[in-house]
């Protein structure tokens, strides 16, 4: 129900009216060198499709290449029933490990808990997760307004779903538009129960407005003018992924560290800090590791907008 960044965004758009001559320059500072760290990217879902775990290494901040994959790892997941899921190395894509479900089935069940074990260069890493429940999406609607003070049309999408009663459900709402995933930092959409934060006490109701509407692409034209998120012919696909409370905290931190729109919002930025991880090296004092393991149940809906 509350979103500090949203409040501040609005507050700070006041700064635009109040054009002060703020200016921003892209710079190339020299950063301290650091050795690469192991990175685990393991977000599994119950969707009937191959599940991929990536193992890579961190890069210097300004590196303009794909992260290097780590080959030769053993990757397994065990559930609370003792079922073993072995992820096989994709020889064509270094660092990708894949488990393919039998036709028509997905990974895991709601209520199940899972333990990931990785063996990389003789070191063992572990992480655990559970699959939470997920509500169905009731509908997706479109609303067309005039851009403030003009006759220009702006169309926005909104999804409708209701958080089940009981505190502690967490979700990542992932949207793609015309088949392209919306992954900009400003497009990250997470919810705790029906609201925006753990302390938010918004349980068992329809997702609140900022969650329902943050499924819109945030694009600008060459003149930095916001484009209508939806135009005639666009289709969007919305998926609600259930996530763990720990994953919610992780993604909250990711949001804080990555969503840096600049401008006057910098007045109210928090310090750069490292995002947490749920992967641990079983040997104390072993090499450090980054990244996250989460298992999601997914509900989805799609709709095409035509005038």
């Amino acid at each position, binding site marked *: 129900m509350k979103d500090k960044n949203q409040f501040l965004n*609005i507050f700070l758009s006041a700064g635009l009216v109040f054009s002060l*001559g703020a*200016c921003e320059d892209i710079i190339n500072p020299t950063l301290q060198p650091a050795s690469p*760290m192991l990175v685990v990217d393991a977000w599994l879902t119950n969707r009937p499709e191959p599940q991929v775990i990536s193992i890579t290494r*961190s890069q210097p901040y300004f590196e303009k290449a794909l992260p290097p994959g780590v080959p030769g790892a053993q990757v397994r997941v065990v559930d609370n029933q003792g079922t073993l899921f072995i992820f096989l190395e994709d020889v064509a894509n270094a660092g990708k490990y894949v488990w393919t479900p039998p036709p028509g089935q997905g990974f895991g069940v709601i209520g199940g808990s899972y333990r990931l074990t990785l063996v990389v260069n003789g070191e063992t890493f572990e992480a655990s997760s559970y699959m939470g429940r997920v509500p169905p999406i009731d509908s997706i609607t479109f609303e067309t307004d005039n851009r403030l003070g003009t006759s220009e049309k702006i169309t926005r999408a909104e999804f409708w779903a209701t958080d089940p009663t009981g505190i502690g459900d967490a979700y990542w709402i992932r949207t793609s538009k015309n088949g392209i995933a919306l992954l*900009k930092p400003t497009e990250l959409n997470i919810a705790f129960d*029906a609201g925006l*934060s753990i302390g938010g006490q*918004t349980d068992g109701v329809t997702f609140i407005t900022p969650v329902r509407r943050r499924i819109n692409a945030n694009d600008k034209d060459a003149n930095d003018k916001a484009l209508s998120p939806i135009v005639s012919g666009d289709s969007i696909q919305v998926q609600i992924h259930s996530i763990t409370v720990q994953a919610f905290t992780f993604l909250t931190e990711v949001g804080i560290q990555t969503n840096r729109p600049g401008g006057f919002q910098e007045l109210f930025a928090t310090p*750069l800090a490292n995002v947490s991880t749920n992967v641990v090296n079983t040997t104390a004092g072993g090499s450090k590791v980054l990244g996250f393991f989460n298992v999601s149940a997914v509900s989805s809906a799609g709709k095409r907008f035509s005038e």
Partner: protein
Amino acid sequence: MRSICRLALFLLISTSVLGQDKFTMNGTVRDASNGEALIGVTVFIKEIRNGAVTNAYGFYAITLPPGTYSVDYSYVGFRLESRVITLEANMQVSIELVPESEQLQEVVVKAEIEQANVSNMEMSTNKLEMKTVLRTPMLFGESDLLRSLLLLPGVSTVGEGASGFNVRGGNVGQNLILLDEAPVYNSSHLFGFFSVFNPDAVKDTKLYKGAIPARFGGRLASILDVRMKEGNNKRVEVAGGIGSIFSRLAVEGPIIKDKASFIVAARRSYIDVLARPFVPLLKEGGALNFYDLTLKTNYKINRRNSLYLSGYFGRDVFRFDKTQGFNWGNATATLRWNHLFNERLFLNATGVYSNYDYALQFGKDDRNRFTWNSSISNFILRPQFTYFINSNNELNFGADVTYYSFRPANAAGITNGKTVDLSLDRKFNLETALHVGNTQRITDAVSVEYGVRFSTFQYFGPGTAYIYGDTIPGVRKPVVGGREYRSGEVIAAYQNLEPRLSFRLQTSGRSAIKGSYNRMAQYLHLISNTTASNPLDVWAPSSNNVQPQLADQFTLGYFRDLTEDKQFEFSLEGYLRYTKNQIDYIDGADLLINEFLEGDFLSGIGRAYGLEAYFQKKSGRLNGWVSYTLGKSELQVDGINAGRWYETRFNQTHNLKIAAFYDISKRWSASANFIYTSGTPTTFPTSRYTQQGILIPHNAEASRNNVYLNDYHRLDISFRLEGKKVRKGKERKNSDYWVFSLYNVYARKNPFSIYFSQNDQRLPSGQPLQSDATQLSIIGTIVPAVSYNFRF
């Protein structure tokens, strides 16, 4: 506690017995032009080479053996007044001083200024004359008290547009800002570009950075004591101005001549009015403005009693259509009674109400809406006595009782027609303090001030207090229990004894060494984890989980008048401050409407130290000052920077400021200031990694504030043109002037911050993500401005 009272009583009785064969002269010193009481006037008795200084109400008292004395009343900017007084009984000598005409400023004030750094007890204290504030070149040409304050030694800011100020490495929440004795919780309008103080209504400003007298307490770093004008009691006067951001109007005048007067001063910004035709938002019912109203009235009932009533009300409003937006503001009211019990015992009793609140509303329809308001309000009772024991001792004692009521969130959300109550418990607190302090002249060359403040704080019910479990440092603490408390039941209580000591040792007629030690306790905490504090930041009281902040500060200084006429003054001061129970926050802390807010707090220690050099030329055609501070401010908090010491975000190693004022001709004058500061520290990443197509920055050392921004420097100038004094052969009744100013003359892009982000381009899957570093300058250009000001 009881023993302190007894001591005070004993001192009172014993000294009045001792004082039988002496007489007291006392009175009030006022400005002859408008009847305003003058604060800090030196009353110097030549025969004993000693004297007194008028207090915040313009009052002084000196007790002497019978005899004939020559007395000089002197005050910067006023003609010296000399009197020969034969003291045969207690007597009252009230004086009016005549201001040096501004037009005569090129005539050097010949009178010897006794109110010098060297003979004065004070150290670590800066007085800011309103005349100086009005002549300092400012952003958009709008004179501003807090922006001018930044030109003083030991005062800094994290950057342009940041609200508040930092004193000697303290954070913005460690300053107590008093407007006519009422605490102001948010001193800014429109981010931090302007302060809430209307320059037309302010009489006098004093900043205490160290050697803080026992009568002040409640914050660690400084006390900013702003006093409002009382209003001209001789004639009606209207003053105002039209600037680029706001317009001002002030009316003051007598209600009963020489007995009662008033002042009403108002400001309103009008950028929204001017911008309305061009900005669609404003046409559709949006608003962006701020306004404030400052008023004061006083009534001198008789020689022994005066009453003052003052108030402030200000608000910032931002709406982005008819129903959505937010607003915030302060309201204060102060009722003061000055009473003279006898020739030597003076009472100032004050009752204060102060409130800060904000309100937000979002949602376009009744089925989907969010409303939230939050407030902190307090009531204060503060009797303060000054007992002028004799010419060598001045005793101050009194009490402070403050009742706080916090409303962290009164909030509700409506989603799809269903209402969810998000409100948090209100919090109630009582802070009390008893204080006593004596300023004692031991010899001509040695004086000391010693005192103690005993403060207590109670947090009481009704409410729920939570208990948090331990966890690894830097991670959110889990709630392990909670307890409901009944109304009035004490949830947490603290008490602190705060000793205050300072000394002055005059080493020659023109130089002195001064030193001090003080302990300060702070029971309220500004909860903010952002670079600059914002209007939604809340204040939180000390509780079962949050300990009061404590500071011990030591200062040592050397003060020197460089010439016989005391035109040139130099001082060098070192300070060292250790702080305890400093609040910092876990990464990803959730500070707004969080029932379990305290689980996101971290606690640590701090240290700040530095050296301040100050050179001032007080008057003459060219006057001004140079201030240089070498400083460091650090924190050590478990869970941040891997537990190592780290510099605060507002730490500045070098901080140089030059302010100069020059009278070009009878009508033209010029002012300039130059600021140079070292870049503030910030945090850079070393590495990056991706999760699900999102690029995340990472620092391999888990450092905080590990690199520095580029240095900051800026030159501002302004020219002032006085209106003609004579028009068509007749002297004009009204006066006016124009101010032409240039801010950031050489248009330097001073960095406010450098931030790291994923490039905004939408890339096809499988392409490497691009990362950028961006340097932001809040004001990266020259800003010219013109304002017109009048008085009649």
